[in-house]
């Protein structure tokens, strides 16, 4: 129980410091607050989808269904965090660009990721038989993840975008006020542990579902 309370207090304390104590980014002004939710969500999306891909590989090597559970849970959570990143990004876009959706390269990239992993869940739901579902889903997950790094990191840098510069700028440095940087990385850590907790819980539910289905 104690580590759950630590996660709660960690994120809550970071919220208080970030929203009350930290200064605003001059370019972003009031919309700075979105930064503390939007980027950690996008970060967890990448971590979750990567974890899904790793477990898909492990499943194909070992044929152990526990890896399929991990892969499916991570893909589901990756999609949830991707939706959070999309919604928070859209709120930010409305405030800065005057429109909820502009088909900016970053928006288009995240839209494709949503489609790709939405299709992954549809594929899982459409296949009868555990082994077959696990095998085909694993292959799809590995192929799907190939598209994630280009969509997340390459496409937005190739095409001109209105989106603010990435956190690590083109010269490889993090150009941020120390207080904002502290809050930002603290939120990244908090969101990562929240993902780990949810992942563990979702895998337990998958195991229960299998046990009850027998």
């Amino acid at each position, binding site marked *: 129980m104690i580590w759950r309370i630590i996660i*709660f207090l960690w994120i809550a304390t970071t919220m208080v410091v970030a929203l009350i104590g930290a200064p605003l980014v001059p370019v972003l002004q009031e919309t700075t607050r979105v930064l503390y939710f939007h980027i950690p969500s996008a970060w967890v999306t990448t971590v979750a989808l990567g974890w899904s891909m790793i477990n898909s590989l492990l499943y194909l090597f070992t044929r152990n269904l526990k890896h399929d559970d991990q892969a499916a849970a991570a893909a589901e959570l990756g999609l949830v965090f991707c939706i959070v990143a999309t919604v928070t990004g859209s709120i930010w876009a409305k405030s800065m660009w005057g429109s909820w959706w502009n088909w900016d390269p970053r928006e288009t990239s995240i839209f494709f990721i949503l489609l790709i992993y939405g299709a992954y869940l549809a594929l899982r739901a459409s296949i009868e038989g555990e082994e077959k579902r696990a095998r085909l889903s694993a292959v799809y997950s590995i192929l799907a993840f190939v598209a994630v790094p280009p969509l997340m990191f390459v496409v937005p840098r190739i095409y001109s975008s209105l989106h603010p510069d990435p956190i690590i700028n083109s010269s490889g440095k993090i150009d941020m006020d120390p207080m904002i940087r502290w809050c930002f990385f603290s939120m990244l850590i908090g969101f990562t542990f929240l993902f780990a*907790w949810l992942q563990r819980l979702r895998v*337990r539910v998958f195991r229960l579902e299998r046990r009850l289905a027998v």
Partner: protein
Amino acid sequence: MDRNWVVLGVSLLVWGLLFFWILRVERRVSEVEKR
């Protein structure tokens, strides 16, 4: 009212509700596992 406090209040409320919802789901899962 200062907007920062409004945003903070809403964020803490949403996070608190989410946290207790996850705890509740986890408790249910533990109960079913024990059966």
